[in-house]
């Protein structure tokens, strides 16, 4: 069974939604895929209790002429088709053009106690709370780095959590300077000011990070390194995230060139969002961490490029360039404190899937040798968590993606042969 779409968009966050809408507005048959049960991505994730922001409602509810394919997980890729798995079966979706809007995931770094239940990412706990995770009345410590910490705190408070504090690893000077520079982007500055106002009663500490989570079968407290010494805080939940990492696995599988100038690779695109592979475009966080505004612009551009409207896409270029300048501001002001790379000790599990401790990786110079000897990165997450962490720790970069790009049923893999040609890219 093979279905054809003029344009397939992978990822139904702000970039993917904008791409799908732009492509469909000219009559193309457009499919919008997402592994999650609803469109919206991470920033516009559906909240079981709270109404969605107006922009999200407009983007999601007003989608015209787009087939939204939720709970569709991409398993394998070809130059002209994707094999996707649904909870029931698998489908082969061929495309004329592809837009990768695969977004980003949180950078989660190992420290003693980070595997305890109740320790999550910052965006992680925000996402869980939006899906109904019980946080009301819970004492929550938020830690890590970047503006996402504030957004997470806001969501958690609206769900009734008692946020004990936000511990930002960047220095007070860096955060102040960031806030000052933010005035170049009035919408972002306005949004940040609103957040700070709503979080007025919540301690926001700088130059501080969680060095250890303690507890027996779940987290009971945290040791926080602050400029004024170590502070112990009792808590029920710790939400710690150190920024975002582009999701590049599908792009890698398709053979798209990645830009690996930084610690974490991003999808390489030209000024019109074309990847190195013909008819494959990329937009949003997968091309570099820049936030919501740039994702929406790039999504629209990539959608237009996917239907061949270069002129309309080009019109967005100045605005896109302006928004992309925010990337550098973000990266510069929230540079990670080198001490964060030394928190994990030899006994700290780094690969959570296979329980490989950091000490077991001593002496290995590349990911494959370490993997063969220790199974580090061989588990269900396929190295998404430990791979990014080990790259950040300066150990070794992750290897290239191979099919299946996410774990899949054996029956799905057995259906792969209906792909048009008999070889995967990038494997």
């Amino acid at each position, binding site marked *: 069974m093979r279905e054809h779409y003029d344009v397939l968009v992978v990822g139904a966050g702000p970039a993917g939604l904008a791409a799908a809408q732009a492509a469909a507005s000219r009559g193309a048959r457009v499919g919008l895929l997402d592994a999650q049960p609803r469109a919206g991505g991470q920033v516009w994730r559906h909240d079981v209790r709270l109404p969605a922001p107006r922009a999200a409602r407009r983007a999601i509810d007003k989608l015209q002429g787009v087939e939204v394919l939720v709970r569709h997980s991409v398993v394998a890729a070809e130059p002209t088709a994707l094999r996707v798995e649904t909870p029931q079966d698998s489908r082969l979706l061929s495309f004329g053009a592809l837009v990768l809007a695969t977004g980003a995931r949180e950078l989660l770094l190992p420290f003693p106690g980070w595997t305890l239940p109740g320790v999550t990412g910052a965006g992680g706990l925000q996402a869980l709370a939006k899906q109904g995770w019980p946080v009301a009345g819970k004492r929550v410590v938020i830690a890590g780095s970047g503006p996402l910490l504030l957004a997470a705190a806001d969501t958690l408070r609206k769900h009734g959590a008692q946020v004990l504090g936000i511990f930002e690893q960047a220095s007070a000077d860096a955060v102040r300077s960031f806030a000052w520079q933010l005035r170049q982007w009035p919408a972002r500055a306005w949004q940040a000011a609103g957040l700070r106002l709503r979080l007025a009663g919540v301690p926001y500490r700088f130059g501080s990070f969680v060095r250890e989570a303690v507890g027996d079968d779940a987290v009971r407290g945290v040791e926080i390194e602050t400029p004024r010494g170590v502070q112990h805080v009792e808590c029920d939940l710790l939400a710690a995230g150190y920024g975002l990492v582009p999701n590049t696995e599908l792009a890698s599988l398709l053979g798209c060139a990645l830009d690996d100038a930084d610690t974490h690779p991003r999808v390489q695109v030209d000024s019109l969002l074309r990847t190195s592979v013909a008819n494959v475009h990329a937009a949003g966080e997968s091309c570099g961490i820049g936030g919501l505004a740039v994702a929406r612009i790039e999504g629209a551009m990539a959608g237009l490029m996917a239907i061949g409207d270069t002129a309309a896409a080009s019109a967005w270029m100045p605005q896109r360039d302006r928004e992309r300048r925010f990337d550098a501001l973000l990266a510069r002001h929230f540079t990670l404190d080198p001490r964060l790379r030394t928190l994990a000790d030899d006994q700290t599990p780094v690969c959570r899937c296979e329980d490989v401790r950091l000490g077991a990786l001593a002496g290995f110079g590349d990911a494959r040798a370490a993997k063969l000897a220790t199974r580090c990165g*061989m588990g269900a997450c396929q190295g998404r968590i430990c791979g990014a962490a080990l790259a950040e720790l300066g150990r070794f970069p992750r290897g290239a993606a191979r099919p299946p790009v996410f774990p899949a*049923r054996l029956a799905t893999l057995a259906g792969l042969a209906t792909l048009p040609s008999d070889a995967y890219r990038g494997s």
Partner: protein
Amino acid sequence: MNGTAATFDLIVVGAGIVGASCADAASAEGMRVAIVEPGPIGGGATAAAMGHLVAMDDDPAELALAHYSLRLWEAFVDLKEAEFSRCGTLWVARNDNELAAAGQRIARLGAAGIDARLVDAAALYELEPELVPGLAGGMLVPREAVVYPPRVANHLVQRAQSRGARLYAGRRAQSLQRGGVLLDDGTRLSGPVLVATGCALPALLPMLPMRARKGHLVITDRYPGLIRHQLLELGYADSAHGDADSSVAFNVQPRPTGQILIGSSREFHANDAGVSPSMVQRMLERSFTFVPRLRELQALRIWTGFRPTTPDGRPYLGAVPGAVDQWVAAGHEGLGVTTAPGSAKLMLDLIQGRRAAIDPAPYSPQRMAA
């Protein structure tokens, strides 16, 4: 770099399971050993292998080497790194013809000293409830086991190093020279050379024919207890030892982790390491016909590897024809993990001029010079 060459009693080129075993055995005898490996230890066929310790009985010479090696593997039972799991091998018969043929195999294995038993249909389902209904029975080889090959290779290299062996990691042997070997960084090592480079053998010893036979494996998430024995179809040898351009056979293994490893496929003339969807499909469909439950299990990874295959299916173990102080141990096809310890013992006996525990003649590389 071209100063005095370092001198060794044996220079082992290649640190797959076979080279690592040879280096380990040589260092245990007090020899000064060098190991040359351009990639990760056990990073070639060793890493791709299933790690099933199994005796195949269709070639008496292979059976002798396997039996010899299986006894040597007993020294690894308690070694943590080996992840030795004595799950036994259960060969599955689809019909009475296959079951009758199993009787002959049991006799051959028994004559070689390997315990194998006939299993009727009722007993078969007691051993493996997930097998598809309607099978005739099978053959159980209870003492066989599985190991985790790359870690074993790593352990063997480390053990050799602890006895003084020197590892030239990240270095490739560029050429064999009179009295030694030249590495790609210009380093010259002098001493007798043992080439154990598997599929890469022709780069150093082009007179010994070697073909790469590609295989695919799929591993699942953890399903402890779902499969209890290494399962193979009795028709497996037709695939393994036939010469078809491509073939698949039912070959499923319970890892000690609870994961299930699913094979197997064989392809000549497939030189790129990419996953072939059609081979994966054939291989998985084959496995579904024996264990239908597999369909719904979560697969984590697919990978490929290349088996070093000689024209007659037997490894080259012995002196390089027409050369002095050059030895070869390569070409074990799908049995390199099983027969590595025996191969290493045999090689050391030959190198030291001792009488070997098994007849070395069938493996002599001289057969290709004839």
